[in-house]
């Protein structure tokens, strides 16, 4: 670009460059109009001063933020515990679902019921039922902890979804790969382990990333059964100050994690697409 050695633009190239430039200008102008309108119009709403006071209070944000941040560490910890277990359990269930051997047929049924059940029930209900139900059996500490059973509910729900992601990924690998592996003498299990799964994982990585982003947010649902994580902490602070700004603080914390993760997922999707098109 701008290199003097380059040949002059052809008429067609010059025309297309003009079109592109015009498009960029239009996009800049319309964006400016839109955001200026938002900036000036919203404060004109009759309730804006009250909303500003109760949601966007800078002093309250400053005082509540350290407490929110330390509660958010629990969210991250729960996420870090759940994520690997979900990935493993999801794979195990997917493999059980794909079983063809008659003697292992009961496992296949278990997998199908598992997937149907945990995908059908809203995650918050699962959290209530398992999170309150199992400690209710009269287990002793630490086995009556809501952290433990609430996390299990999340793990089961997400593993059910993840199992279907794995399964569709496995089915998307062309059958010729299986033929090639078998013709070399690989057993069914070896074919899966060395040929199918590695290709599956790279293919479904973008989907896995999206599920992880979703999980990162759903960890906050555990607040309903006890753990003082960031949402519950924000609730406490809200009651303390009589102001909703702590919610905004909690939202900011989630954004700090999920937006970079979303961009990473987008990048990986684009990369996978590029690989497919190559």
């Amino acid at each position, binding site marked *: 670009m701008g290199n003097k050695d380059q040949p002059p633009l052809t008429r067609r190239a010059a025309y297309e460059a003009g079109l592109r430039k015009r498009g960029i200008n239009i996009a800049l102008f319309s964006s400016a109009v839109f955001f200026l309108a938002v900036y000036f119009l919203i404060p004109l709403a009759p309730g804006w001063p009250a909303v500003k006071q109760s949601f966007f209070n800078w002093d309250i944000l400053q005082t509540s933020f350290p407490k929110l941040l330390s509660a958010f560490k629990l969210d991250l910890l729960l996420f870090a515990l759940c994520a690997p277990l979900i990935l493993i359990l999801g794979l195990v269930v997917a493999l059980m679902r794909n079983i063809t051997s008659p003697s292992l047929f009961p496992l296949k049924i278990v997998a199908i019921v598992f997937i149907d059940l945990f995908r059908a029930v809203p995650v918050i209900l699962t959290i209530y039922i398992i999170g309150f139900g199992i400690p209710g059996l009269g287990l002793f500490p630490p086995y009556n902890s809501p952290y433990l059973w609430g996390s299990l509910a999340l793990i089961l729900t997400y593993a059910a979804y993840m199992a279907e992601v794995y399964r569709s990924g496995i089915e998307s690998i062309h059958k*010729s790969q299986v*033929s*090639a592996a*078998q*013709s*070399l*003498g*690989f057993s069914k299990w070896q074919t899966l382990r060395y*040929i199918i799964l590695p290709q599956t994982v790279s293919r479904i990585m973008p989907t896995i990333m999206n599920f992880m982003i979703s999980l990162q947010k759903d960890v906050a649902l555990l607040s309903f059964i006890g753990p003082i994580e960031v949402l519950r902490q924000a609730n406490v602070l809200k009651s303390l100050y009589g102001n909703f700004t702590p919610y905004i603080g909690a939202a900011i914390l989630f954004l700090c994690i999920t937006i970079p993760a979303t961009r990473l997922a987008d990048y990986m999707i684009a990369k996978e697409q590029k690989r497919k098109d190559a």
Partner: protein
Amino acid sequence: MSKLVVKNLRKSFGHNEVCKNISFEVQKSELLCLIGGSGSGKSTLLRCLNLLEHIDDGEILLDGEDVSIPGFDPELLRRRMGMVFQSYNLFPHMSVLQNLTLAQTKIKKLSAQTAQDKAMALLEQFGLEEKAHTYPDKLSGGQQQRIAIARALAMDPEILLLDEVTSALDPELVGEVLQVIKSLKKQGMTMILATHEMGFARSAADQVAFLYGGELVEIAPPEKIFTNPENAKTRQFLSRVLDAN
């Protein structure tokens, strides 16, 4: 004793009988070419021989041993019988070298070094040693197919099945793959090749078998098949194919 004997092999997909009572024999170090139109059953026959398809009836004897009896472990057969496919089917997530070493280390339990030496020797033989660390999608079709052949050879098979290995290639790349098959023949490899390359079948094969509608119509040395076929269907097929060229 014949290296491979096929007796009354039958295979159907639903009501569609794809291999109808096929019998033939292949001697050690022979090249048998299967010719015939698309859908004549060449590929299915090869897949049956490698037990990639479940056969409905018949026998497959390798060195006199029946490998088609129910309960025979197909993996044991496949270690002795390599197969190469029309669309190469290299493993895209592995480098060329890994494609050649994986089965050696996992199935034959060879050490990584031994497997790699064997792989590099084969790549050198095919003039592809500088591609060892490349991934398959960066290679031409001809290179991929030669690597697929090398991958099968790395397992030291006694018989090599080649399923239309040049059909997916650009015309200028067909020669390099046929050259490889010729050099294998010189080394004494027993091979069965399904092909549309009549010129190659005529010059290189020991036997040529013509398949039509799932039937093995005629099997004979190439001079006989190409100059004086017995069956009218063979004559018709050849005159159509050879006229087109």
